[in-house]
């Protein structure tokens, strides 16, 4: 019986264009990230100095003159590295950062937000003041300072995102928990003798969950952008590693000569963020039984 309703939910999800488009974008990213070694046409670090600044072969180019030369579908950069391969490997980093950072951020923020919203009083005062102080720092600056203190690398970037962005979850979850707590069904649950932790976990949390799904997907988008910003200023991974932000940063230098070096990774980033947001929004609409009506 439960399966029947689950199938209905799946059918409903598949009918929602946001979910489908967002889902396809995420699926594409996942496939590219997991299958990078097989999908990428070339080694992302391999330099072909003779073929530097090759324009994308997709639009027809000099490669036509020499049929035997390797084709660079999305062109090459200043060192003759294959842009397509670098973007595929960049997807891997972007997705890794997005998933891990968003999950950890959600965990920390939700825990603190739920405690503040549910228990109120001193707990709330303490956590809320902390959030206020935290949010008074400019986020990107804070991230840059953090990474320069704790050093560069994948985990530093993730840590910086979590440390900067937990407040986003904390605020929203706190407000929502407060709103839910005031509703009759919580009084009703208390009246039936349920313990506070149980009420928080099994009564309030499911009502906050649809919101969390949206927030997590939005946060994945933010994480991708923050990672790109840190790469852009050279504070993410070692410059050898392919990242979208790093590619944008390097491409910026040659934007007049080879605009695709900057435009292509930017497009990839925009598609990823838009796809994630569409997925989050679509899921929220479909999963919320109240909106469903």
């Amino acid at each position, binding site marked *: 019986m439960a399966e029947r309703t689950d199938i209905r939910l799946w059918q409903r999800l598949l009918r929602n264009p946001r979910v489908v488009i967002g889902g396809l974008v995420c699926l594409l990213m996942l496939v590219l990230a997991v299958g990078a070694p097989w999908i990428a046409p070339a080694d992302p670090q391999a330099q072909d100095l003779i073929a530097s600044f090759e324009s994308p072969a997709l639009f027809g180019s000099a490669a036509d003159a020499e049929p035997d030369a390797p084709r660079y579908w999305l062109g090459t950069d200043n060192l003759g590295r294959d842009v397509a391969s670098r973007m595929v490997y960049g997807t891997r980093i972007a997705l890794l950062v997005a998933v891990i950072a968003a999950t950890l951020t959600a965990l920390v923020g939700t825990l603190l937000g739920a405690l503040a919203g549910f228990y109120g009083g001193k707990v709330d005062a303490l956590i809320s003041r902390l959030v206020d102080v935290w949010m008074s720092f400019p986020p990107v600056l804070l991230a840059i300072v953090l990474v320069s203190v704790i050093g560069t690398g994948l985990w530093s970037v993730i840590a910086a995102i979590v440390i900067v962005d937990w407040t986003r979850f904390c605020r929203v979850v706190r407000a929502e928990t407060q709103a839910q707590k005031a509703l*009759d*069904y919580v009084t009703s649950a208390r009246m*039936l003798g349920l313990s506070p932790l149980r009420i928080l976990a099994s009564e309030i949390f*499911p009502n906050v969950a649809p919101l969390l799904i949206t927030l997590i997907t939005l946060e994945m988008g933010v994480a991708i952008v923050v990672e790109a910003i840190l790469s852009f200023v050279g504070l993410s991974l070692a410059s050898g590693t392919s990242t979208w932000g790093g590619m944008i940063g390097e491409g910026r230098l040659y934007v007049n000569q080879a605009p695709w070096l900057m435009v292509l990774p930017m497009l990839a980033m925009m598609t990823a963020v838009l796809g994630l947001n569409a997925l989050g929004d679509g899921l929220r609409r479909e999963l919320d039984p109240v909106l469903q009506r």
Partner: protein
Amino acid sequence: MSQGLSITDATTTAAVPVLQIDDLHVEIRQAGRVTPILRGVKLSVSAGRIHALVGESGGGKSMVAKAATGLLPESAVTTRGRIVLAGQDVTRWDEPRWRTLRGRTVSMVLQDPLTALNPVRRIGAQMADVLRLHQGLRGAAADAENLRLLDQVQVRDPAQVLRQYPHQLSGGMRQRVVIAMAWACRPQLIICDEPTTALDVTVQKQVLRLIHRLAGEGQGVLMVTHDLGVVAKLCHSLSVIHGGRILESGSVSDVFAQPQHAYTRALLAATPRFDRPGHTLVPVDDALIAQLDDETRAYDRQQGVAA
């Protein structure tokens, strides 16, 4: 449990009060201000009886209901009096101790069935919580008990309802589910906080009939309401509350026949009476309310509380 047993329960314990409130004074202390809410409330609910608490909005009805379930807001302070619930003095109990009573010894049916159920959980899961917590029932045993409870509150197709979400049910159905949950562990006292106010008139009647039937099994019911028609049809005794003071108490037949307090008379005059077709409705006189408010203030001064 056999029908015969519950009837003897009802008759032998009829005189024992399951809820006894004596001289209860509660005030709200917030931002340096002290506001008295309950001023010497005294009432008692016996097993197997339905006692009505009648009054207008803001009169302290819901506060009495909250006090009797330990759900008073944190800013509320009980300054005097005591509450005895099922033989235990619970006046100053803390939250963990209250939790041992709630659902098991006392439970409450809230006013609005639209909000009293968790919108994102199936009915079956919500009902199972109570059974697991208080009776240790799980899985198939809990399912069977859920079906039995829903059947008892006359829900059609209970197996289907258990799998549904609250928004898929009508208001009357939801209130039946809420009542089933409140009754699940046979608590000695059930407080119904205006259980029919949010329902259609035809559904009201069915729900009241249901409460009447369930109360016949021996539980004490405190019926918080402003509907004297409900009181006349359903309840055995009543207390009239205004400004946190009980103005009059007694059996329904006595009070309706010979109301002692002017406020009770005014309330009765403002209620449609089908037993007296010529009866015209009279709104409650403003002067009377003003006089009552004066009395309340005088009481506060006498108690030494700055109004």
